[in-house]
């Protein structure tokens, strides 16, 4: 006897649907490359998952149809620049599926968030491709050209806002001299925020992680901002730039690799938020969501064992 609520496959599908607004916003600002990355990612994910399941002598169709590989691919695809060459997403997704998930025994057994493992792998291996973003909407033709290396489009690329701020500050500039407006980043973040709220209302994700994550980012950023508002970004910019909302609602909430106790989820989310700001401000990379999530994935067993809830009558 089971409830009529969502089953695992439907949950995965709902998460994918709720990404639509964020992906739509990315498409609006960066053009067709966004969708090409997603298609490449999904195809690679299904191929890698099938190949590996065959090697493990496991049935292929139930695993493929659960939607988890597709979700991993989409999350990774929206995290990387839309104009990255095709092999970047192919390598990243293959790594995520094989070394992030299948090698541990498939769905439900991976200690790390596969998409973020793939992202970290790509960022370390191909820093240039991973930090060169489109600076304008690119048409279908131009996107094809850039993704498949047919021609170079240097004039249309640039760094992300967080990257730019980091570079300028390290060169001794003050925030006041930098143009901090980034409509594209803000709108993309709002897109993911709305999608995330949908997941919360459908009770597909629990409130603890996103709330704690956002509080972690906000409080840490506020603390730094109060110390020196000439060098450190304001909390609202930290919330609206980079992968904050994607991370808070879609990455950190991955049930498999996150904490499972109610209080544990609060600690887990808050510390990711804190680490995101620390890495952005003091670390070597412009954004910190991937590393923050991976670091906290390591801490999950410890957090869980210290946050066992009190049982009834104990």
């Amino acid at each position, binding site marked *: *006897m*089971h*409830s009529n*609520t*969502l*089953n*695992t*496959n*439907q*949950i995965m599908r709902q998460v994918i649907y709720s990404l639509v607004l964020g992906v739509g916003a990315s498409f609006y600002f960066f053009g067709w490359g966004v969708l090409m990355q997603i298609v490449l990612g999904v195809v690679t994910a299904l191929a890698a998952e099938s190949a590996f399941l065959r090697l493990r002598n496991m049935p292929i169709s*139930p695993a493929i149809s*659960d939607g*988890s590989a597709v979700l991993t691919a989409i999350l990774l695809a929206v995290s990387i620049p839309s104009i990255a060459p095709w092999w970047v997403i192919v390598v990243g997704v293959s790594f995520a599926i094989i070394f992030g998930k299948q090698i541990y025994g*498939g*769905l*439900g*057994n991976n200690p790390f968030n596969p998409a973020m493992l793939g992202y970290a792998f790509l960022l370390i291996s191909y820093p240039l491709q991973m930090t060169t973003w489109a600076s304008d909407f690119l048409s279908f033709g131009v996107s094809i050209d850039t993704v498949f290396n047919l021609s170079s489009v240097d004039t249309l690329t640039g760094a992300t806002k967080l990257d730019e701020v980091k570079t300028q500050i390290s060169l001794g500039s003050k925030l006041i001299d930098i143009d901090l407006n980034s409509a594209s980043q803000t709108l993309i973040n709002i897109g993911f925020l709305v999608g995330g709220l949908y997941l919360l209302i459908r009770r597909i994700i*629990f409130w603890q992680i996103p709330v704690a994550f956002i509080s972690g980012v906000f409080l840490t950023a506020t603390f730094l901002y109060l110390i020196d508002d000439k060098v450190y970004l304001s909390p609202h910019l930290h919330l609206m730039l980079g992968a904050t909302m994607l991370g808070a609602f879609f990455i950190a909430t991955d*049930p*498999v690799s*996150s904490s*499972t*106790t*109610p209080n544990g*989820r609060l600690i887990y989310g808050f510390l990711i938020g804190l680490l995101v700001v620390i890495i952005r401000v003091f670390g070597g990379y412009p954004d910190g969501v991937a590393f923050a999530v991976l670091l906290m994935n390591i801490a999950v067993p410890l957090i*869980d064992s210290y946050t*066992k*809830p*009190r*049982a*009834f*009558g*104990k």
Partner: protein
Amino acid sequence: MLSGTHKGGIFIPNPYPVKSIRLYQAALPDKVVLPLNERMTEKAIPCVSVGDRVLTGQLIADNEDINSVPIHATISGHVISIDEQPIPHKSGLNTQCITIESDGKDEWVEGNITNKDFLQSDPNSLIELIHRAGIVGMGGAGFPTHLKLGLAQNCNTLIVNGTECEPGIMCDDALMQNYPREIIRGVEIMLHICGAERAIIAVENDKPEAFNSLLLYNYNDKISIEYVPTKFTSGSEKMLIKGLLNIEIPSGGFAIDEGVICQNIATVKSIFDAVIEGKALVSRIVTVTGDGVSMPSNYEVRLGSSFEHIVSKSKPNNGNHSIRMGGMMMGIDVETTDLPIGKISNCIFVNNKVQKEAPKECIRCGTCNQVCPVELLPQQLYWYSKSENTDKAVEYNLLDCIECACCSYVCPSHIPLVNYYSFAKALHFKKIEEQRKTDIARERFEYREYRLERNKIERAEMMEAKKKAIKEKMAKEKSQKDKISAAIERVNKNKKNNIDA
């Protein structure tokens, strides 16, 4: 006013609702099968033999053991066999049953003691009366009522559990709507027996008809009727006490330690029948429901009638059915409807057989954490149970699990979580038993070693003593010999001297 509630649990509306709760009086069955021990505890011993004529309410099996419950004939007729028969029990084992064939007359045994003026009676004699009537907890556990009442003197609050055990069951609703007067009187009897200051009758808030019928007959200001949320596991004893009184019974503790006693509402009605009418427990109300019947209904039926006797009245469709006794959550699956209705059979689910969906991997979503009424971590328990790490599972409070199956119900991967826990519990107890056995074996071995060692030492000491004794003896003998030879020599010498002289 709606009472408070415990954490967790799930709201499941009755999956097979009916327009009005009618109570059908089931026809007299042709035969009844009465198990001698429904709970697999101390068996009652038959005091009738095959061929005897028995009357309704007549004692047919009893045992001097205080833990056992007497068995009564539930129809008049002849005993046709006393043998092993299948009964609806988790173990699936057969048990000794008395089978009575009806003569269709339903003649009642006479000369029963009635106690209409129960307030003048000694509580202990009433408890004995309840014992003699064969009353057990009718909510599902089947704990002998006289034992519970025997422990309940000096309690302060009596809770009468009028919540249905599980979604879909309607037998208590039917009981409350049809016998409100008897229930209130029954509660008064119980108040007298256990000396409690107040009684609370708990009714789920989706049963206003039952609530109002009780209210209409309640003129006792010690008795209050309260709504509890229609949430699954609200009816579980400890959860109900938490909801009504905000008292949390400690793990491993009992309600009575806190001065609370909880009694099922059908049991209270049986107590009325026993004390006021002088009738033994011979019938109960059973719900027949599920998607395999087109007319879910409640029947007042004689104990020992077959499931089929009332299932056939509920218009079952012609499909393959899966039969389940008890609720959809915690009930037990049985193979056939050819099983006797017992004192604890509150519901029969008749469902169309469906292909079970294969469970998927756990994605650690934690939905199970949210619904666990005991506030456990079902997911962690699942990992440890699956890997047979029972020590760790027990550390995560496996033994506090009430096996309500809320976690299995909500699991998006359709993992039968609760089955893993029952398995782990069984494994845990088996390990403890094995540990106990090895401990005994080790003790025996060590004692044997000690005994052998002791024997060896004793033997050595004995040998030593013997040797010494022999030596002494020899020494003694030698001195004796010496003395003799000395004497002989002396004699010889004397002789010689004499001769010489």
